[in-house]
């Protein structure tokens, strides 16, 4: 039996499912480290958010009746994108974030961030960040209540706020709250050492004397994020233009402000603190909500870096990466409109007919 096909008859082995699986693998070490740092609460948070995302996806597949002969309501889980959204969302939340609220975040991420736009490949915004933005607006106190890492009883006991009853608001409990390096710097003028920012580990866990590593699950160790991202880049899965653009712009912009006012955070502090690394490498690089044109990627990254620094320095919030990415997501159509690549063979008319002119 001879089959007729059109060329090309060869296919790269890099498939979508492979790419997404590799992203999951790259996120696992970050998840494990967050569990090591924050204990049971972190584990529960990751499980609740991801299952909420997966459940939402299945629910909407069922509601939309997205089934056919070889497609069940579970088929869309095969590409792992719901899982990735769940993991990223969990990593962007504070460790003591009430579990019921985090399931709301997961639901909103998939329902409003992904399914509403038409599912995988069609979302305008990064779904994880959209979910987080929703809970940031809905539960402003809970999402800015941080727990220090490395509490001695973290593996035997939940952070009390984690277990807040559904539809009730957690009461911050002394001994379990601490400020992130960014908040410390912004509101109290205390700088965290660069070593603890990049490694995420400090020997000193005393609450009274910072620095201690505190922050969302996945953002305490910049070094680990770099390593995991390097793995993806080496495999040709993650683009390098966007993270590079974000990092460069952040360094340059904050460097300029640092030159004029040494009270503002140093460029390296800017880089290592908060969710910048996680955002730059794992959120902004979500291909669906980023531009496809090479120049567009640079503009997109630069926009995120610039916005982050401005929000951090002049905004009311200590952290700005989330809104910066969402803002840049929304600008993608405009960015693409001005950054289409120069097509081969479109050269200035003067040069075009050089050989013709020579003759005459």
């Amino acid at each position, binding site marked *: *039996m*001879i*089959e*007729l*096909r*059109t*060329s*090309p*008859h*060869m*296919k*790269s*082995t*890099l*498939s*979508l*499912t*492979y*790419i997404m699986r590799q992203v999951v693998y790259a996120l696992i070490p970050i998840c494990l480290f967050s569990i090591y740092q924050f204990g049971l609460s972190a584990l529960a948070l990751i499980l609740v958010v991801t299952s909420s995302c997966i459940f939402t996806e299945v629910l909407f597949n069922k509601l939309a009746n997205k089934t056919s002969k070889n497609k069940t309501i579970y088929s869309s889980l095969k*590409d792992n994108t719901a899982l990735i959204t769940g993991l990223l969302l969990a990593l962007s939340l504070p460790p003591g974030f009430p579990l019921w609220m985090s399931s709301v975040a997961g639901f909103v991420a998939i329902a409003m961030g992904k399914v509403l736009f*038409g*599912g*995988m*490949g*069609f979302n305008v915004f990064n779904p994880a960040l959209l979910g987080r933005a929703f809970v940031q607006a809905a539960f402003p106190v809970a999402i800015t209540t941080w727990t220090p890492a490395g509490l001695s009883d973290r593996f035997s006991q939940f952070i009390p706020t984690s277990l807040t009853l559904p539809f009730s608001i957690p009461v911050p409990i002394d001994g379990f709250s601490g400020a992130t390096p960014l908040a410390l710097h912004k509101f109290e003028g205390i700088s965290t050492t660069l070593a603890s920012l990049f490694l995420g580990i400090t020997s000193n866990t005393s609450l009274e004397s910072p620095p201690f590593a505190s922050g969302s699950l996945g953002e305490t160790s910049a070094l680990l994020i770099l390593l995991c991202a390097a793995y993806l*880049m*080496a*495999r*040709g899965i993650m*683009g*390098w233009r966007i993270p590079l653009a974000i990092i460069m712009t952040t360094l340059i912009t904050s460097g300029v402000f640092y030159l004029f006012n040494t009270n503002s955070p140093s460029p390296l502090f800017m880089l290592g603190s908060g969710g910048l690394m996680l955002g730059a490498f794992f959120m902004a690089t979500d*291909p*669906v909500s*980023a*531009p*496809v*044109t*090479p120049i567009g*990627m640079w503009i997109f990254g630069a926009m995120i870096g610039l916005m982050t620094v401005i929000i951090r320095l002049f905004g009311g919030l200590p952290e700005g990466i989330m809104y910066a990415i969402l803002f840049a997501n929304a600008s993608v159509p405009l960015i*693409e409109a001005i950054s*289409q*690549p*120069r*097509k*081969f*063979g*479109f*050269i200035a008319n003067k040069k*075009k*007919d*050089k*050989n*013709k002119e*020579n*003759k*005459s």
Partner: protein
Amino acid sequence: MSMWDHFKSKTFSHGIHLPDKKEHTKDQAIRRLPFAPELVIPLSQHFGKPAIAIVQPGQEVVRGELIAKSDGFMSVPIHAPASGLIKAIKLHATARGPKTEAIIIQTWAGSNQRTASFDPLDIPSLTHEQFIQAVQDTGMVGLGGAGFPTHVKLSVPPEYRIDTLVVNGCECEPYLTTDHRLMLEHPEALLHGTQMLMHALGAKQAIIGIEDNKMDAIQALDEHLSGFEPIQVVAVPTHYPQGAEKLLIKVLLDREVPSGGFPYQVGVVVQNIATLSQLGELLPHNQGLIERVVTVTGTGIDKPGNYIIPLGTPIQFLLDQVGFYGSASHLILGGPMMGSTVASLDVPITKPVSGLLVFDDTSIEKVSDDIYPCIKCARCVDACPMHLNPSMLGQLATKHHYDAMQQNFHLMDCFECGCCSYICPSNIPLVQYFRIAKSVLRESALKETTS
């Protein structure tokens, strides 16, 4: 494209790196295959008007004799690939799809198959017009796969001046090794052909661009270069689709052929290795093109190799000769990236066919049949050698916005190299969409001009 690729690439930007798969045939010397008992010679083996048969059924022909004349300038004649009897002139299946008129020759089993001899040509004494006519009389077309009449390419509009003849020795398609073997085994024919064309075009220099996976060919040509001073051999990094003439010109000369334009607009004519080495052999003897070298390889083939095959040899006969024992599911004429599949084993080998690849179900690299939505990963944008935006074009194609594809995203600059489809992780058949879009646009343009 990883970060590293981006920095190390010294050739044209974009494109892809393919597994080259040439190991089975690149060391196989060119061998001759016997004549099939029946040859099928389609009158349209080239780009342009079909040739006009000048023989009648029942007539005897000698190998090399003219059997069909060209129909005007955009056409080439056809010569008898073997001595025999014209059995019929009838419609026959071809690689292009619809049946076309073909001359069927029953070869004489006992013939010595000596080629008819003609008065030799004194090439240097020919005028430009006579030279072009002589090239047309050989029935030569681009043997690299396009099948574009060679003499048309040489007829540069008088207002343009050609300074460089580029010889395309890239053979960037995986599996194919015909040009490689020709360079190794017949360097003189190639260099003679190159020199003739340089002379005819008035080109000051010729550059033979060869991908660096064929270092032995580069060496072989270098050894024969003395006496051919203005011809130089340049190694270029292996990179698909470097054999596309616009890209090769960019790589070798850093000149960019304007969109929708021709190489002569930047002072260049490009010819392929097989074309030039055949011309080098045929032209001085005033002979016609009657056979060509074809790489036959793939799964289930006992003797993969590079064979001289009389034009018109049916695929079935060819497969019998190379000891095919497998069960073919895909028969590809040409390379795996741009070649076309055929539906029938009766289809003959024609002038532009550089390879016959046979695959069974296991050898076609199939990752998954699932087509996912575009995730805008931009791999196709990084791969497109024409710097188009296949991602956007693909989305427009699924919505049938063909006019927008043409006007805003330069669809017509796509030369269908297939990089985008190859690289797409979502398995979107991008280049296939573009082919459909282009043919729809061409048809509607045709309708507009006629109405």
